[in-house]
Structure formats: C-alpha cells, structure tokens
C-alpha cells in the first residue's frame, strides 16, 4: 500500500474535524431550559392553568396556535372553549397568550433558542412591553 502514513494522518485529521462539535460540547451539557411562569398575571390566577393542559401546550402549541390563527382570521370565530376547564378565551396571541406570558424572553425564547427554532410570529405580532424593557 502506498502512502499509508499520510492516509492515516489524513483520516485522523478528518475524524477530529468531523467530531469536533461533539468533542467540543462534551462535559459541558447545557441544561434543558425551564420557561419561567412567574409573571404578575399568572401569579394573580387562583387556578394556574393555561387554555389547555401543560403537556398538550408543551408538545403541540405550534399546531394549536395555527389552529387559533385559522379560527380567528379565516373563520372569524374569536372565542375558544377550553376542553380543560370549560372557560371561554378570546382567540388572540397578543391579547390572550401574551397577557399571561408577558415574559417572552424568559418564556418563548428560552426554549426556542435552546432548540434553535426561529418562529416568525414577532415579525408582525407585538411582544408585551414589560419584556421589552427588561431586554
């Protein structure tokens, strides 16, 4: 075999280069984000519940927001009957979701940054003021 040494060195460099992101992050595991729920609005609630149960909101809020969007914009149905507690909620990202979750930076962004997803909600929708001031 020709140039065995050169090939081996090349392979080693290649492997090191390719596994660099894994090796670099080794031992410094980033803890899973914990979205904060301590906004004044939430603390005021006696029954600390979102519009649906936590597990559903955590896993499916994206589909749920799309569902709300279509309901309000396309079907003009602007109230939502919660299956969790039977309450009626106004279908609105800015006026319902963000009224409680007024801490976009510590709530939405904490997971979205961790998962490196960039939803474009905020290109149009206005985030609450309190969160803006703390930025």
């Amino acid at each position: 075999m020709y140039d065995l040494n050169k090939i081996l060195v090349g392979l080693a460099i290649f492997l090191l280069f390719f596994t660099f992101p894994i090796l670099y992050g080794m031992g410094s595991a980033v803890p899973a984000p914990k979205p904060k729920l301590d906004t004044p609005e939430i603390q005021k609630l006696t029954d600390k519940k979102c519009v649906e149960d936590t597990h559903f909101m955590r896993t499916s809020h994206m589909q749920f927001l799309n569902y709300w969007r279509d309901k309000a914009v396309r079907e003009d149905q602007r109230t939502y009957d919660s299956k969790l507690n039977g309450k009626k909620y106004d279908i609105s990202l800015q006026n319902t979701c963000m009224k409680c979750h007024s801490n976009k930076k510590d709530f939405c962004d904490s997971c979205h940054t961790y998962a490196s997803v960039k939803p474009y909600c905020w290109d149009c929708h206005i985030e609450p003021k309190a969160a803006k001031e703390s930025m």
Partner: protein
Amino acid sequence: MKASRREFLKLAGVSALFGLGANAAFELLTPGALEASSEVAHGAAHGEAAEGVQAATRWAMVIDVRKCILQEDCQDCVLACNSTHNIPTVGNPKEEIKWIWKDTFEHLFPDQHSQYVDEGLEGKAFPVMCNHCQYPPCVRVCPTKATFKRPDGIVMMDMHRCIGCRFCMAACPYGARSFNWRDPRKYFEGKEAMLNPEQPTRTKGVVEKCTFCPERLAKGLEPACVEACKKRKSDCLIFGNLNDPESEVRKILRKRTSIRRKPELGTQPSVFFLV
C-alpha cells in the same frame, strides 16, 4: 396500423358526431346537472353561498361627501385607522401604506368628471378605503388565498399566507392595496409608544388594506374610522348591514343619491358615496 386518408376522415367525422352528442346525452341522462355544477363552481369562486341564498350580513360603508367636505382639514378617520392598525407614516408616496385616505372627487371619480364639476365638490377631498367588492378581483387572482371574501362581505387579508406577489394590487381597480417595501417596524423606531399593543404590525413583503376592523365588529363595535368620525360629531361615515332593509345604511341610501367608484367594472363595491 396504417390508415388511409379516407379512413382517417371517416373516424374523425364519427368522433366529432359523438362529441357533439355528449352534451345532449348528459342532458338526457341527468337533466340540468351539468349546468348546475358549473354555476355552483362559479358561485364558489366568488365566495358566495349557494345560488339564491342571501347571507344575513353584508357590511357596507356610506360616506356622506356633502358633510365631509365641510370638515376640510379633518384627518380624524385616517389617524384613527393608522393608530388602531399600526400603520406607519412612510413619507415617500411611492411606498406609503394606506387603509383609508383622503382624495379629491376628480381623482376618485375620473369617469364622472364633467367639464363643469359642481363647485362644492371641485378639488374637495373626502375619505376612501377598500370597496369590499361583492365580486372582488383581488380575491380571484390571489394564488395563495391570502385574500378572501368572508360570508359577511368583508374582503379579508390573511397576512400569514401572503407571499407578496402583488397580483392583487394589479387586479384592484381602486388602488386600495399597499405593499410593504420595507419592514414597517422601522418607521416606529423610537416611537414604540405609538404602537397599539392589541394589534400586530405587518412585515416586509406583504400586501395590506382596509379590513373593516373585523376584530372590532366581533366585539360589537363599529370600525375605528366610523367611531372617530362620530366622536367629532360630523357623522360622515355610516357603517351597517346592506342586507338588512331597516339598517341605517339602507335607510340613507333610499333617501339620498349615491354613487360608487367604477361601477361599470361590475365589482359591486360596498362603499357608497352620497353626493
């Protein structure tokens, strides 16, 4: 298979006969079905209910031009709309965003322009907005159904779907649509307090227009421009249901002469001007 010219012509003739007979055959087997299906498709294209069924509501605006031109420098309706819907003040007229704006009689009704325009109307400005046409050309051309007609007659924009192709702007005969050439947030820099926190802004690359404030209608309120006009007690804007014979808009349309912009195009606008 080898076909001679004679055989080919025979075959073509027989096929043509079959083709001509197809429509009659359909008519014989299922009378009326063929025509009905094409009519339903036509109605659906205009976002309408089944043939002959009238929706309970068709929102309309009546603009009392005679009253409005007395308030010459009034911009209350325009300003109310701008602040409600976070519409930026752009400055450059080529890039401006407008939902409701004021223009002169000659500009808005070029087809009505006689050599001797009524002195009272000549050069006088009054508000215009999207006509919320019964047969909206913008809706027909939108490739993503981002703009669509609601059952209550409002021609609505779904900003989530708009891809910014501007076909609707080309189709609209009234210039009622505006394109966001730049990020509209830019115009609110340092003026964030002016933003209405209950409503979104738009983003770069979408088309926007008057929506008759559906979020306010849902709460039982009138559109923001109408409210501002009423607050001033000038009552130039009257909003109501065109399909209710006893509504305020129908009453005033019965009493006064009204005109609509470019009626010859057959779009059936829902915005009426009392002259």
